[in-house]
């Protein structure tokens, strides 16, 4: 039992950190532009495929460096040359634009790399078990993933809270006109933040690609979960996104390891109870409903605390 708890905790934290890498960019962009960037997971996928391609040519470490930069530049270009103009037409137009962009990215990936998963591997130098805990090997690649995620979180926190750039960014979020009057280029700040956000998603893709499967439908399954995280954490709150990511990572992981059901709690139903609804609900295990728990959490948060756990304004 202890074994399962510790392993699950490790797995949960790791999964949560990966989610945070993706959600951090999304939450900042959301609060700045007020737009749910539906294409965010698409850029994550683009990062994974760029990472695959570059690591094939030059090795994994170059991919880790170059892929997020290239994808980040693409993201910045999207903000500068498309989103900024569309911004004037209102939120619905922006929403539709990112929605369409998500499809375009998916199609482009399918055209270039096909629909099958690609053979994307981590670096051979990390291809050994870092440590063994209760006979479960922990690949050093996962430890590396852990380190990168924590490093990014700390770095982001320092930049936003302690540096001058962070100060300008934070001010631009709430008082863009004022910041512009003080002589800062708010447009550039937006482009920069958007680019960095997209770059972070791409970084997550480069790192997650070898562990999860790199294929053209990897974005679609993720985007909904990311929205849950940024809403639960509170819009625009980096710490909120961090906590919510870990929370959801842990909840999902632990829920899977629980086999309890209403039947095991209260005993089996009488045999003449109706099969439809009652009997089905009675015997379903917590493990089976694990994937919907985040969405249940989303609904609860929206009802009880609409601004999210760490948010300051209402969604």
């Amino acid at each position, binding site marked *: *039992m202890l*074994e*399962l708890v510790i*392993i*699950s905790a490790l*797995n*949960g934290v*790791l*999964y949560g950190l990966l989610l945070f890498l993706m959600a951090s960019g999304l939450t900042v962009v959301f609060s700045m532009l007020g737009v749910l960037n539906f294409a965010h997971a698409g850029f994550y996928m683009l990062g994974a495929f760029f990472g695959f391609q570059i690591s094939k040519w030059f090795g994994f470490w170059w991919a880790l460096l170059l892929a997020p930069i290239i994808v980040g530049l693409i993201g910045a270009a999207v903000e500068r040359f498309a989103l900024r103009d569309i911004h004037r037409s209102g939120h619905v137009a922006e929403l539709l634009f990112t929605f369409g962009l998500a499809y375009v990215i998916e199609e482009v990936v399918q055209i270039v790399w*096909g*629909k*099958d*998963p*690609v*053979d994307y*591997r981590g670096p051979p130098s990390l291809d050994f*078990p870092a440590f*063994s805990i209760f*006979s*479960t*090997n*922990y*690949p050093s*690649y*996962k430890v590396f993933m852990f380190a990168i995620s924590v490093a990014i979180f700390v770095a982001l926190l320092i930049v936003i809270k302690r540096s001058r750039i962070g100060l300008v960014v934070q001010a631009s979020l709430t008082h863009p006109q004022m910041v512009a009057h003080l002589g800062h280029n708010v447009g550039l700040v937006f482009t920069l933040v958007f680019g960095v956000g997209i770059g972070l998603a791409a970084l997550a893709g480069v790192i997650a690609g*070898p*562990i*999860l*499967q790199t*294929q053209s*439908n*990897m974005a*679609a*399954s*993720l985007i909904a979960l990311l929205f849950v995280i940024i809403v639960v954490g509170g819009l625009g709150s980096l710490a909120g996104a961090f906590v919510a990511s870990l929370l959801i990572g842990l909840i*999902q*992981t*632990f829920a*899977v*390891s629980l086999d309890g059901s209403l039947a095991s709690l209260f005993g089996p139903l009488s045999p003449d109870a109706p099969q439809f609804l009652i009997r089905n609900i009675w015997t379903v*295990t917590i*493990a*089976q409903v*694990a*994937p919907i728990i985040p969405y249940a959490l989303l609904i609860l948060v929206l009802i009880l605390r609409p601004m999210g756990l760490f948010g300051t304004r209402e969604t």
Partner: protein
Amino acid sequence: MGKIALAFLLMLMPLSGFAMAQESVRIAYIDTLSGGGASVGVARLKAFQFLAEDVNAKGGILGKKLEIVPFDNKTNAQESVIQAQKAIDSGIRFITQGNGSSVAVALTEFVLKHNERNPGQEVLYFNYSSIDPVLTNAKCNFWHFAWDANSDVKMEAITNYIKANPSIKKIYLINQDYSYGKSVRAAAREMLAAKRPDIKIVGDELHPMLKVTDFSPYVAKIRASGADAVISGNWGQDLALLLKAAGSSGLDVNWYTYYGVATAGIPISLKQVNLNHKVFGVTEGIANVDYAPSREFEKRWRAKYGEDFVLFAPRQVNEIKMFVAAAEKAKSFDPIKIALALENMEIDVFDGGKGMMRKEDHQFFQPLYVASFGELKASEPFDEEGTGWGNTVVAKIEAKDTLTKTSCKMTRPQ
């Protein structure tokens, strides 16, 4: 110029349609050609077209060319029915489909209804891959033929293999949470209890279908259960990600699966996490079966599509082979006559040995292979997906040992 070209085109169009109807017999391929399952759907389409070319190179069927007409059903039951209607409206009388049991159930019900309402316009449904046992049991009908071993038959093969391996003592079941996954787990429990009552089932998991991105928690659970073998009916990313998570955490169990060999994407994942001959699959044939004709076909196929790692399924070859044989036996393309000719038809299957289409439920029975994926021996020429590893036959189960009971009671045309 433009006008002349247009007039010319207009003249040509009805002509070509007419010519086609005269010269070719058409099979509507209604399957998933876009979205998540497209890689499989497109590969299977290429294989059917490849087979049709083969048939036509030998002079066609009864002097007519065989033509495969693709329709995209988007893996959606409702859309499949619409596409089937479209195919029938264009005069097609044979439908083939394989991916997704929900689609198969919708199609078989649609074909049954259509044939009842349109006597003289009957349509046949050749199911090459959907393996929900319900299709040849409760929902069986005269117009549906299944070429892949259904889920119960495959489990029969797996449990026969397990029966002969006394080292297996604790088994964990993990399956997708929908009708097919539930039928796999039910069959596993029932057959293991009958064949190896000493085996302990230490876990019985249903996980959401195609929604899990990280299987590490499930792997941790399997490890905690102390299982030495896992049975899973998973397919697609649910299998690839599960095996990848298991391999990278060093979980040392044997995997008995339906789709662990000979499905796209799995070989790459297994090589990545170094699962060498740990994953077993049950299938009607693999590239390395020691049989000259199938190896020759495999070579020709790989010469054409090998670089793209496109897989065909031997059951597709069996289906087309039997369709040709049935038409020639019936000397007609009348669906009822072809259906009657198919019943109890025996053929030499693609990978050698005899196969038979059982009359009672229209389920095809054939020799099945339990194979594992890993390093190849010198006598095995074919690797998978450029990994250098390939599939090795570990056991062959004769067709007679795979016969299952059926509850099918079909109404036959008078």
